[in-house]
């Protein structure tokens, strides 16, 4: 085993909450559903949970095995490795996309002059050093950061209650059903089903039978937080919610309690730094560990920095400009992610069932 650390199901839940909140904390998903975004998130949560059901069932079927080892078992060495490489590409690309969001937000709102390379490198260094410390350290970080973030979200929501105009949420289900479903699917594919990267981490549960419940619990909690944030943004910003790139950031700017509790938008930015840190770290961890397993290395630590650099380079060259990034994440990503999130895990699960893997006769294959 490359990873000696073990995490509890509770830690996994918290880490997963942090991962899902990751960049969706600032780019509230379902934005194209306008004030019905929260319905889209709720539907997306359902779809995402179904998807999560597939991959957790797959990974927990093979105790203590990551998807890479499972692929080898199910498809054989050659095809298995090919499929594993597909996954690795997805993790790497997703990491680069999150980095893109990260840098875009900070360069737009707070640091317009700082070179994007520098920002990317700084974030990558911190994530790399955390990954270097192993999954346990990462999970423990999440245990502090996620409760902090969630309480900040609630605090900010409290402060915004005077600015709520619930009329802005009416009428419910204003959107044509097709559009809403598409929006729901894009929500499912953007934060929720991205948790497919946990196929690399579920193996390190100390009690693997609790994994399924941990994952679904985490998705529901993260979904609730996102729904609350989305309702808040719609209620505060009204029809402008669909126009802003970062509605949460704009909504929090509205807070003004006696000229003292005002200009709190930095809290949203801090939330994004910390949650984005968790998300990138998890993705980097998945990529690096997976690559080490594909290549049969004895440790994933030596390749953290090179892979991190590759992720940064991918983030730098990923898109030519911001509008392409938005175009990709809104229109193409929900389709692009389907094979990685649903099709491959589903096929693997079916084949594993048909071949009755893993063999229960105890002997390690």
């Amino acid at each position, binding site marked *: 085993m490359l990873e000696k650390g073990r995490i509890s199901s509770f830690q996994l839940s918290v880490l997963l909450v942090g991962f899902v909140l990751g960049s969706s904390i600032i780019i509230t998903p379902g934005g194209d559903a306008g004030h019905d975004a929260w319905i889209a998130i709720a539907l997306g949560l359902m779809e995402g949970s179904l998807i999560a059901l597939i991959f957790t069932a797959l990974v927990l079927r093979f105790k203590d095995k990551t998807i890479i080892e499972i692929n080898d078992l199910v498809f054989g060495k050659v095809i298995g490795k090919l499929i594993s490489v597909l996954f690795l590409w997805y993790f790497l690309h997703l990491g680069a996309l999150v980095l893109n969001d990260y840098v875009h937000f900070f360069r737009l709102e*707070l640091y317009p002059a700082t070179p994007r390379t520098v920002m990317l490198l700084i974030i990558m260094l911190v994530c790399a050093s955390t990954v270097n410390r192993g999954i346990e350290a990462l999970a423990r970080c999440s245990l502090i950061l996620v409760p902090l973030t969630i309480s900040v979200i609630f605090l900010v929501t409290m402060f915004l209650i005077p600015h709520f105009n619930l009329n802005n949420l*009416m009428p419910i289900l204003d959107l044509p059903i097709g559009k809403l479903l598409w929006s729901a699917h894009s929500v499912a594919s953007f934060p929720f089903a991205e948790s497919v990267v946990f196929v690399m981490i579920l193996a390190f549960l100390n009690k693997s039978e609790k994994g399924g419940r941990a994952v679904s619990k985490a998705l529901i909690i993260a979904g609730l937080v996102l729904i609350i944030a989305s309702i808040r943004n719609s209620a505060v*910003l*009204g029809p*402008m919610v669909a126009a802003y790139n970062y509605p949460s950031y704009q909504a929090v700017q509205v807070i*003004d309690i006696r000229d003292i509790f005002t200009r709190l938008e930095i809290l949203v930015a801090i939330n994004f730094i910390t949650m984005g840190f968790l998300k990138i770290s998890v993705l980097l961890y998945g990529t690096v560990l997976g690559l080490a397993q594909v290549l049969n290395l004895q440790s994933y630590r030596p390749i953290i920095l090179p892979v991190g650099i590759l992720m940064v380079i991918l983030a730098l060259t990923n898109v030519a400009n911001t509008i392409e990034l938005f175009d990709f994440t809104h229109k193409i990503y929900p389709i692009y992610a389907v094979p990685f999130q649903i099709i491959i895990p589903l096929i693997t699960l079916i084949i594993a069932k048909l071949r009755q893997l893993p063999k229960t006769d105890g002997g390690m294959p």
Partner: protein
Amino acid sequence: MKNRQQGKISLVILLSIISVFIVGCWDSRELSTLSLIAGLGFDLDPATKRATLTYQSIVPSQVKPSPSMGGGEGKQTGSGGLQSIQLDHDTGLSPYEVLNRYTQHGSRIPFYQHTQVIVIGKAAAEHGLYPFLDTVIRNPAGRPNILLAISDNKASDILAVEDGMENIQAVGMANIIKLSARFSKYPAVTCLDFTSRFIGKTTAPVAPIMGVFEETGPEGKRQKKIRINGTAVFKGDKMIGKLNEQESSGLLWVINQIEKGFVIIPEASLEIIGSKTKIIPELTGGKIKITVEIEEEANLIQYNNARNITPDLIHQLEKAQAREIESQVKAVIKKSMALNADIFDFGGAVHRKYKKEWKKMEPRWDDIYPTIEVSVKVKTRLDEIGDINKAIMTE
């Protein structure tokens, strides 16, 4: 072994992060290199299409001379002799071009995040605000809760008035707007409110109108002062009309923004302590009927007749008050129908209740709106009668 390796790596990472920081500080904005813009004025010459911006910036060294600066001459405090603000003007073809031009004469980088109020000249408002609004909303420096005001003449005139108890006039102006909204005279409109109404297509944006008036000071000196004297009504991004004082209050009654304030009827003055408005649309046979239901509660704070107050009298006062409110509301509804500007968000109310029918109605809203039948129902309640329960003089 492993620990030592890890320790070394993390040390290197810490050092390299710090060194990266030290190499460059790209976004450092030292406070003493910034010119803090407190108020922004936007004017447009309709003939030449040239925009003019007026900046009211804070001169920090003059705001409050700190005692430790120990100076002989700069000792006086207050707004007396020291100019704590500075006015600058620039003109150009597009708003951002003008903003940009500041750097030709400013010694400090303009910093817009603390802008308190944006004043828009009447001509600009009538000509169309879209380019300017886009500048404000698109720019990360434009906060959504900056207050908007329309000048009844040129914006630069308003920003040039030196008046008020505040060191920074723009702060004073923002306070005037907030106060008038708190006492339910005129609406306070932020950029966010304005653009939300704007993006809603059928809803017409509004904004308070500010004017300058002159009065004679104690020593016969002519003094300029600012006051709010109306509410501008927009259709799209263009100003098309103006509500007077009574109509402005009426507007606030309808859109449920009454907080505090007073209702004055011939025989008494009443202080509003609470109010709630419901807009109930009804669609019958393709025709829209809207009921505005106002429930209000007030205290008696002044009674003009030397009579004891009896339950009957209270009843009469309640009715008189309801009539007064109704007349305000009716006045503003009449005006808005005349302007064909849905300043009450009636369209939104219909949308919320009849979302299917709304799809068809939305494009024709301009035709439908003037034909809407609006009925007003006012329920008032008088609660307290003040510190005395007997008239202090009998007739």
